[in-house]
């Protein structure tokens, strides 16, 4: 576990810059295959609408995976992650066009938890189409 960010170099409020992640229908099919989650709401428009959704939506776990990238790219070693949790507040709607949807994800240091364990809590924000798609999205990481 060798994070590259040093505990002593971060402060409460230190920001991890917002990044954009694009997701289209092909990406959802690929994620379905890789994750084994073949729920048709993620690839079948008719099914999604029949169960009351506006359109096909991204897997919540796909959004959670992208949000994790923001954290693990910052720490350097994904093994530095100690805790990670999110609430799925709004679905990411993925239209059937050549653009798909965009998820904007950023984070900031919300607390320095333990000077000895060198752990900090990051609060993550994730929005798509101007709506917050994750709530209480938090990661605890062990820094160098």
């Amino acid at each position, binding site marked *: 576990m*060798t994070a590259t960010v040093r505990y002593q170099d971060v402060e409460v409020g230190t920001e991890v810059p917002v990044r954009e992640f694009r997701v289209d229908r092909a990406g959802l099919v690929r994620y379905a*295959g*890789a994750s084994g989650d073949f729920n048709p709401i993620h690839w079948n428009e008719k099914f999604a609408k029949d169960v009351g959704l506006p359109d096909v939506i991204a897997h*919540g776990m*796909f959004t959670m995976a992208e949000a*994790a990238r923001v954290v693990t*790219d910052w720490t350097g*070693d994904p093994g530095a992650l*100690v805790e*990670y949790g999110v609430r799925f507040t709004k679905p990411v709607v993925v239209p059937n066009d050549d653009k798909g949807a965009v998820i904007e994800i950023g984070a900031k240091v919300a607390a320095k938890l333990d000077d000895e364990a060198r752990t900090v809590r990051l609060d993550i924000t994730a929005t798509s189409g101007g709506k917050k798609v994750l709530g209480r999205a938090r990661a605890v990481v062990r820094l160098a």
Partner: protein
Amino acid sequence: MALDQSFVGRSYPPTAPYEVGREKIREFAEAIGDTNPVYTDPEAARALGHPDVIAPPTFVFAITFKAAGAQVVEDPALGLDYSRVVHGDQQFAYTRPVRAGDRLRVTSTIDSIKSLAGNDVLSVRGEVHDEAGEHVVTSFTTLVARAAEAEESR
């Protein structure tokens, strides 16, 4: 219909081992667009102190959810209507990252059953251990089964 509260605290037997393969990790990393070499290159993983390539943090969900799905969600005695289920909340507590070569067993436990505004809210904990019996990660999954009435009155 509200779920039976007597299921709270119920644990299911550990699953048969799931063997984590390098190429499965690669496939997952590619599907989430993550090019971190620690997921695909054993040398890069070893440089960070891992014995082999590790899996992205959410990879393990496929394993814990499969366990929960086969045992809890489809437990006929519990009576959850899966066609109305959405994923409400997900948390992980890691002892170490999942890595290639791991043979992982999941022990699922129902942590809570609540009824909120007619929705059934089911929280399932999946404890993941390796072949040596060491803890790897615990997954906390909250599923929400939307109320049938709300659906019909739309």
